[in-house]
């Protein structure tokens, strides 16, 4: 837990530092006539201060014995599941313009349902087809929203 919190705090600190650096490249001006960079510079500095305070607070906090070991017992494979899930959504996004909405939605549903444990191919294909078709009907025909048609033009 402590390790996770230290990593989280450090990431936020880094974000504050990057903001500060990029803000300094913009005109700062004065408080009377602020430049584009003044407000983000103040925010970057405040974020660095807050996250540093947090990291120090966590670092000097006394953890009850064994807590770190207990928190490390994450369910094996579950993070992989999350990554695969997110990866499938990212792949669908990458293919959206080329494949078109209907095919992308179909493949996305196939992949996600399979990832979440739907093993039998017939219900998997049937459910993916129905959900992709229904969402296509809803968005394209009912809400009249133009969605990508892809190379196959449908």
């Amino acid at each position, binding site marked *: 837990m402590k390790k996770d919190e230290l990593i989280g705090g450090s990431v936020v600190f880094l974000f504050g530092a990057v903001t500060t650096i990029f803000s300094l490249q913009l005109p700062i001006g004065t408080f009377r006539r*602020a430049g584009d960079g003044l407000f983000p510079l103040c925010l970057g500095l405040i974020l660095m201060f807050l996250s540093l*305070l947090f990291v120090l607070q966590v670092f000097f906090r006394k953890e009850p014995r064994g807590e770190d070991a207990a928190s490390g017992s994450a369910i094996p494979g579950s993070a992989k599941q*999350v990554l695969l899930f997110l990866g499938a959504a990212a792949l669908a*996004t990458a293919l959206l313009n080329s494949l078109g909405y209907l095919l992308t*939605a179909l493949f996305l549903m196939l992949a996600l349902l399979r990832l979440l444990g739907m093993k039998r191919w017939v219900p998997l294909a049937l459910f993916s087809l129905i959900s992709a078709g229904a969402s296509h009907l809803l968005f394209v025909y009912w*809400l009249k929203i133009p969605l990508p048609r892809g190379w196959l033009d449908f």
Partner: protein
Amino acid sequence: MFESLGHLASGFGVATTLHNLFYCLIGVTVGTLIGVLPGIGPIAGIALLIPATFGLDPTAAIIMLAGIYYGAMYGGSTTSILLNVPGETASVITCIDGYQMAQQGRAGPALAICAIGSFVAGTIGLFGLVFLAPPLARAALVFGPPEYFALMVFGFIVLSNVTGTSLLKSLMMAVVGLIIGTIGLDPVTGNARFTFGHVYLLGGIEFVAVAIGLFGIAEVLANVEKPPEMLEKKVIVPRFRDLYPSLTDLKKSIKPILRGSGLGFGLGLVPGPAPVIATYASYMVEKKVSRHPEEFGKGAIEGVAGPESANNAASQSAFIPLFVLGIPFAPPTAILLGALLIHGVNPGPLMISQHPELFWGVIASMYIGNFILLVLNLPFVPFFASILRIPQNILLPLIVLFCLTGMYTVNNSVLDIWLMLLLGGLGYLMRKWAYEGAPLLLALVLGPRLEVAFRQSLMISRGDFEIFLSRPISLALLLATALFLLIPAARMILKAAKKDNLVKSRKT
């Protein structure tokens, strides 16, 4: 007062047109579904459906989106009672006694009391809105940039104080949101800032992508991680004839409903996740005033009636700061602010006079929406309960598909989907590290307004920070902010000192 009643009557005229009634019905029905389904809350739900309102006039659009908001608040209680899984955070407290009632075969009366309580709270909230909003709008006309700046800072600090487990973490998230809000064109000079030459970033970070990413995709990812057996729960589906509460139930619930409504309405005016705080406060009050506090936690109907009324009243009064000041105090109303701006309506003290049709129409539609919720939801409770039987391994991919499609429809841009997925991953990590998304989202929406107020104040004072302290309203708000910051710090120091004393006394 009579003038307000006249305006309200005209509002009912607007809200009861067939067109607006239809969108109110769609809003509350979709909202109830969003509230019922775990994995998508009111924030992501409203954000997801903003594109569906693009073809509508602003009044119908806001009527529908507001309907989704209070419909979701209502729907959340259904899952709390039937499944012991709150549909959204404000329904957590309903689980305690609501689920116990369901276990005892009294799910019907629990759900009916929720609906009746929400309707009564909606009625009280309506009159509060009608009589409080116009005088507050007149008072808000004296607000200048320093007052707005102080009010927004106050809002961030209070929200950070009451959300999450650590004030420091919530504050960090608020500042991250403010920084993300600076991407795009400088609101004063119009120069590009942090865009790195990309045209896409000129318009700033799409808040809908942030909302759906942090609150929709992240929630789905958190559910994906759970082992399958944790996702399967037994659903209790009540029969229609078992829905009616007894006379004793009604008698027991009247006072908690009235107390909850008053408490919720008052708390809705304060910055922070008002419905959540209101439900907790109402539960505590009911337990304290009850002659049988030992029944709480074992299926006391008062423990359902009070918090549910408080929840609805707070959701309704949260519209007052949004409409009157143009400043939302919580993420769902922040999303509604975004929707108003998209539709070309700039909420603030002048909204009532500039857009009376929209203001009074939306207020009247809330009452109609509450009535629709009461009339429609009770007979359909078995239907909504059946929806809960959809396995999560089917529901979660469907939510992702809708998030992706909904996100694309905002600007017809694949880049928005990438941003949403990125923020979904970030939101998942934030959950792992126990960071709250609410302060980030609120800060992102309010960031540009805060910056403008800050810079305008300093321009007026020629760079002198005393302007924030020399004006009474701004001073009072900043003093209150300091108090909210100092109290937790003082509490922490006292706790540490107590712990030290304990260790010393043990050693001796």
